[in-house]
């Protein structure tokens, strides 16, 4: 039994939640102690995550593995470890949680809120760090209820509807994955005589093709709902829109990423043959997501809903890149994850700040507020530009890598994906213009207060990160790259060096 940094990362927030639980509620003073305690814990988490970042050695597979006995009868063990795919996501989680707490400083029933945020943090980190499939599943589903609670208790008007919809959708996907996990366990048991949920051991076992297809589909059920992949996205606009700001930030910033993370971690590596079979359909669905999400975003009246739908479009790039599984497209897909987490997280923070000022999310209720809110307006512009993929900001790198990777395999898809960038420019800039520019539509808006110090502290680090990653994408890709390369090798597609390979029909399998 070896426990260390990773276990500390996972369990410290739970300890923090216990501490918060016994603190006095202090409702009349806004739960100051609870907020301070949870902010402190989440900042310690950030320090731990950065320590992990510093100690990580790229290209060495799973590192800092910690193991302990757990469910002995089933051969399930407590196994956590980090590799290039999980590391940036762990750090992203550790960044967004303290900002989420700080960004929700005025929330009512702060004690409960802080408790839920810390439990969520533990669950999210557990999902990224677990290397045992049963342990992964426990974290995966264990996170469901706190998130449901966050939406349902602190959300907007239709919060209960949105929370229940989120819960049932993800639960349904999750239980189907559970059947897949257990089925994989028994296939491995039958083939090798060893019953294990340990990912590292399962990786050395390849089920028969027919079994792979079923298992791939079972895992896909959970991940496709989480990403979400069109047409399973219908829970997302409701959940993201009705959730409180911190909930939307974590949903968009972390939870959606778990879907793509799952595809990379499990679907592609455990079932490579099936991944090749599912390649065209997933790639197409990714493209549909890009175009559909973009088009629907452009039509939204509600600013928050617009940002929510833009997530469908952005995650479409990730799905497309993961599905094609070339070196470039995987790196791009992965980079989109991080960039989207930062950019869309920022946008949700900013929409929340606007709402706190005017108590409306409708674009039509704003107009020309840039004069009163120059700083917020500037923040929003930068986040919007990042989100629409302006060169120099993080999203650009990811989307370009995906589009390039796609072009080498199937140019037609790349053209469609590139059109999505155009759509993003349309809906983002149009929304920005309608909210912030033009004549001041509501005279009383002239008196709105600009970004407070606390709000600047929340937003500025995210914008700086977007800028840094826009110029130095290697910060992430050097760490993720080797791990993504092993994924690509397992899928077994040749590295594409040359230009367009042309398509045969959709030509996806033969494309390389």
């Amino acid at each position, binding site marked *: 039994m070896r426990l260390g940094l990773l276990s500390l990362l996972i369990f410290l927030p739970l300890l923090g939640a216990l501490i918060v639980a016994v603190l006095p509620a202090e409702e009349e003073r806004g739960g100051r102690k609870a907020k301070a305690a949870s902010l402190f814990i989440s900042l310690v988490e950030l320090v731990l995550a950065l320590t992990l970042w510093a100690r990580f050695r790229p290209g060495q597979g799973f590192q800092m593995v910690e193991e302990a006995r757990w*469910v002995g009868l089933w051969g399930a063990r407590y196994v956590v470890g980090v590799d290039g795919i999980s590391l940036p996501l762990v750090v992203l989680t550790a960044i967004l949680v303290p900002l989420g707490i700080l960004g929700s400083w005025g929330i009512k029933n702060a004690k*409960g809120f802080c408790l839920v945020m810390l439990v969520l943090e533990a669950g999210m980190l557990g999902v990224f760090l677990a290397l045992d499939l049963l342990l992964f599943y*426990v974290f995966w589903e264990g996170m469901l*209820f706190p998130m449901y*609670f966050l939406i*349902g208790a602190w959300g907007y008007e239709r919060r209960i509807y949105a929370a*229940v919809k989120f819960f049932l959708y993800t639960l349904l996907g999750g239980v189907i994955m559970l*059947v897949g996990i*257990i089925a994989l366990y028994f296939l491995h048991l039958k083939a090798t005589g060893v019953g294990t949920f340990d990912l590292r051991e399962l990786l050395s076992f390849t089920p028969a093709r027919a079994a792979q297809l079923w298992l791939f589909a079972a895992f896909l059920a959970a991940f496709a709902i989480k990403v979400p992949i069109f047409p399973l996205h219908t829970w997302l606009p409701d959940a993201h829109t009705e959730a409180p700001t911190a909930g939307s930030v974590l949903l968009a910033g972390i939870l959606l990423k778990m879907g793509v993370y799952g595809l990379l971690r499990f679907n592609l590596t455990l079932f490579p043959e099936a991944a090749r079979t599912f390649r065209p359909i997933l790639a197409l669905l990714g493209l549909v997501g890009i175009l559909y999400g973009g088009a629907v975003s452009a039509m939204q009246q509600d600013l928050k809903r617009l940002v929510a739908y833009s997530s469908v479009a952005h995650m479409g790039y990730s799905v497309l890149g993961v599905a094609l599984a070339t070196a470039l497209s995987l790196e791009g897909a992965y980079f989109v994850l991080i960039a989207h987490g930062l950019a869309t997280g920022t946008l949700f923070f900013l929409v929340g700040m606007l709402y706190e000022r005017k108590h409306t999310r409708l674009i039509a209720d704003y107009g020309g507020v840039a004069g009163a809110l120059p700083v917020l307006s500037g923040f929003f512009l930068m986040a919007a530009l990042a989100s629409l993929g302006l060169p120099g900001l993080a999203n650009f790198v990811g989307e370009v890598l995906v589009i390039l990777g796609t072009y080498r395999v199937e140019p037609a898809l790349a053209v469609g994906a590139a059109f999505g960038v155009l759509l993003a420019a349309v809906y983002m800039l149009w929304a920005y213009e309608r909210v912030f520019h033009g004549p001041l539509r509501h005279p009383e808006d002239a008196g709105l207060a600009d970004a407070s110090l606390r709000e600047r502290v929340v937003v500025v680090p995210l914008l700086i990160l977007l800028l840094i990653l826009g110029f130095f994408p290697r910060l992430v890709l050097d760490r993720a790259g080797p791990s993504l390369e092993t994924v690509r090798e397992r899928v077994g597609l040749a590295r594409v060096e040359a230009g367009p390979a042309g398509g045969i029909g959709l030509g996806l399998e033969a494309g390389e």
Partner: protein
Amino acid sequence: MMPGLAGTLMTPEAWMALAPALSLVAAGVVVLLAGSGSRRPESQLLLSLLGLGAAGFFLGRRAGVTGLVLSGALALDPLGRFAGMVVVVAAGLSLLFAPAYLRARGLVRPEYFALVLFATAGMVLLAGASDLVSIFLSLEVLSLCLYALAAFATGRASSLEAGLKYLVLGAFSSAIFLYGAALAYGATGATALHRLGEAAWGALDPRVLLAGLALLAGGLAFKVGAVPFQFWLPDVYQGAPTPVTAFMASGTKVAAFAALLRLLYVAFPSARWDWRLAAEVAAWASMFGGAFLALTQTDVKRMLAYSSVAHAGFLLVGVSGGTRLGVSGVLFYLSVYILAVVGAFGVLALAGLRPEERWDLRSLAGLGRRNPVLGGAFAVFLLSLAGIPPTSGFMAKFYVFGAALSAGQTPLVLGAVLASAVAAFAYIRVVVALFLEEGEAEVPGVPGLFAVALGLAAFFVLALGVMPGGLMDIAAASSLFAAGGM
């Protein structure tokens, strides 16, 4: 029993098999005698807990002993021991609700405790009964006590109705069981389960034996509340005093499932293909019937009753696998299920401390906001029943579904996970009411004994969800029957 045989029959092992039930009966008699003058339910509770403790002690002493005693009427085996322990825990936990509840409703009478103890004795015997006659006798012992307990709130029409309904339909199910026993005896000339298993090959007419099997299993399915034998269950669960419901929903299910396992695995191993199919059909019907009907309820007590039907279905998934892994899965499931179900009904029993007893969703709205600890405990029980990690309900479902997958029942398991998602919706509606709705819930004061029972249950529901390894090992080691069959 003939006098001359007593010496040879009453071996030390026989006493060992009877000791738990005898100590429960003795405690019941003492409660009746000592309690008739006393109005203090706490002292009666203490005596009852002593009896339960003694029963647990004697069950614990049985470790490692395997065999049949009293001419095969009772089995001393790990399965009976495990199920007996679980029954004792369920009885002990649900008894903790009794004093405050009885006092608030003006029902303080020592009969309550005595009847619970006698019923527990019946359940412990049923968990080890290995002969059609002894199964029937222990079934009757527990059922007769439960009929009276269901009607214990004599001033309330719904309680009397529950008792009467349970009595009439229960008698009907007893008749079904007896008819099945007669057919099985007619076909093979035996009533001991292991003899039935041996004689099955030479049965005069296998069709008669199969008809007997169907009727015997039907009689037990009535007790566990599996479709199509569930009609009594919602009314009885709803009408009975809530601490009684907690006891019925937990203890009866454990004992009856133990008997069902023994009947199917020991007496009818050769008919495995027949009963596996029947159990699968009953599992499908119970899971989906229970889950969908639970969805339509606005009364939480009734919703839990229907969900109990769904849980009978999930347990039948484990039974229908026909494997040892399935048996141990069922045992593990039962042992964590009782914690959640006793806890959930315990929270509802708090409503009985107020003049007007209500369990509808509206009466619970906002409870979790006003008393987060109580609401949180209730949510833990509900999430465990829904099978959401990290509660132990998830580990239980994982175990039985895994066992069924290993037996190749993939469609059944897919159905089971879908049904559990449907059932989860029913539980989530209650959690929504507890925490997310503004409501009129009066925050009940929680008496000390309630707090102890609910706290223990909630703690173990979570602890066994996070660290299920130990109990799983015990359940796996307990999936052994005394006589053949496996």
